[in-house]
């Protein structure tokens, strides 16, 4: 087989056991390559967020090896965590914006964290705000924005530092279908410009429509990994059973 482009995420036989004894990931392996767009799906409690937390080094693997952005973060020291996270953009279902700062400041904040010179911050922030279509709302505070707009701000913040990897944990979980679709389109745009994108989602319609690689996790184990996949039939079936219980 011809060698693909470089790996940006590589998990080898990773297990995560929480202090409570809950085994969130079991012997999990996956490779994600630069420039890919990957959906991670699975029933709630299957271990999707744990996978994201592993990449961000919010949890450590109990066993196995985690490599992100070419760096082995399996045993990363506390003081190196910040540097590691600066190379990953991240958005969550609950947006996680600083409530006491306006749109501009929320995005600029990510630049200040990496000590971007003051004179460049204004330009960079304006550029990403234009990209997510929020130039006019620069001065607005999070509570004055709709959910979709808040998620755009979070997206702008995630990419303003020109990160090679963007991770989204259920980014459309709090949004209506139309807004969800817009956010997905933005993610696809960002991906087209070269950023690797990993999206955890429950949204079957979106997954089926976008025809991307789909990784399905079930009970902490890799269930399926399909190029141009669908929200898997079998998973749908298992989810129906799950819901009926």
């Amino acid at each position, binding site marked *: 087989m011809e060698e693909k482009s470089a790996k940006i995420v590589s998990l080898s036989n990773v297990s995560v056991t929480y202090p409570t004894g809950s085994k969130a990931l079991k012997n999990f392996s996956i490779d994600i390559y630069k420039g890919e767009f990957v959906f991670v799906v699975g029933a709630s409690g299957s271990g999707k967020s744990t996978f994201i937390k592993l990449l961000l080094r919010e949890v450590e693997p109990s066993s196995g090896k985690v490599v992100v952005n070419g760096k082995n973060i399996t045993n990363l020291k506390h003081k190196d965590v*910040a540097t590691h*996270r600066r190379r*990953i953009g991240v958005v969550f279902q609950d947006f996680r914006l600083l409530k006491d700062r306006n749109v501009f400041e929320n995005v600029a904040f990510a630049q200040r*964290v990496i000590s971007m010179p003051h004179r460049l911050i204004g330009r960079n922030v304006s550029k990403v705000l234009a990209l997510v279509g929020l130039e006019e709302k620069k001065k607005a505070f999070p509570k004055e924005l709709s959910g979709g707009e808040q998620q755009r701000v979070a997206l702008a913040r995630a990419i303003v530092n020109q990160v090679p990897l963007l991770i989204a944990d259920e980014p459309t979980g709090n949004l209506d279908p139309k807004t969800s679709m817009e956010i997905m389109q933005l993610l696809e745009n960002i991906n087209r410009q070269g950023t690797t994108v990993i999206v955890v989602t429950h949204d079957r319609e979106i997954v089926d429509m976008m025809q991307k690689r789909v990784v399905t996790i079930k009970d902490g184990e890799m269930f399926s990994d399909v190029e141009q996949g669908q929200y898997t039939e079998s998973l749908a079936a298992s989810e129906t059973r799950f819901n009926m219980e």
Partner: protein
Amino acid sequence: MEGIHTFFYSIKQGIINLKRNKMFTITSICTITACLFLFGLCYSLVSNIQYIVKSIEGNVAITVFFDEGTKDSQKAEIALELKENKKIKKVEYISAEQAWENFKEDIFETQPELVDTFEEDNPLADSDSYLVYVKDMSEQNSVVKTIEKMDGVRKVKSSKEAVKTLVTFNRVIGIVSVVLIIILLTVSTFLIQNTIIVGISVRREEIRIMRMIGATDFFVQGPFVVEGITIGLIGALIPILVLLITYNRVLNWISSQFGVLTNWISFLSLQSEFMVIVPACIGLGVGIGLVGSLVTVKKHLNV
């Protein structure tokens, strides 16, 4: 390079935070002000009492009389021996004439008509003496015993009552100040802990987001440190100002209420009080602010 940017960002953001969280800022400043004001009050009280006691102590002396017919050379030897004693601070010679003059002055104040009856004849001839001042009141009794055993010494006069009172008083002040400091520390710790708990709940989300974006511990702590130091500084300056304004007034009031006292005692000057209070308050205030803010942040850095 990171340092400079982060430094200015920290100062700016710290001040913005102070303004944004007005209630928290005000509560914290009030807490520190209250604690430091109490500290200043206690300190002025205790230091003044100690000062008064010291000045009274300084005036309490042992009088040493000589055997009749003791030669001047022998008296000089006694003086030498006394001065060598490490427990003794000062030895003063009182001639018979001086003793007579002092006596006349005392009598004159109360019964002036008696003075004339003595005429010019000094009844206190031969009662020249040494006035011996000891360094530490509690050592007075042992010093008296040592002097009594010396050759050429007829009599040693000392006020046992005065000494006993002063020594007890000193001990009471020691205990009272320790108790006050313990109470103060307990109250301060409690108040400051509460303030920090409030601070933590206000900032939990903020710190989590900073960490998520990849802020270093240094970057996250910066604004909090600026905040803590500012709060501590303001919290220290207010009680200093209050003490500055009230100190002399209170002393004047005490003097006017208890006029008799002013002949006997004097108080520490505002200046000498402030030599200790100003650096102590600023040090404590900034220290409390700094530690408080660092504790607040540290709890959330491990994400």
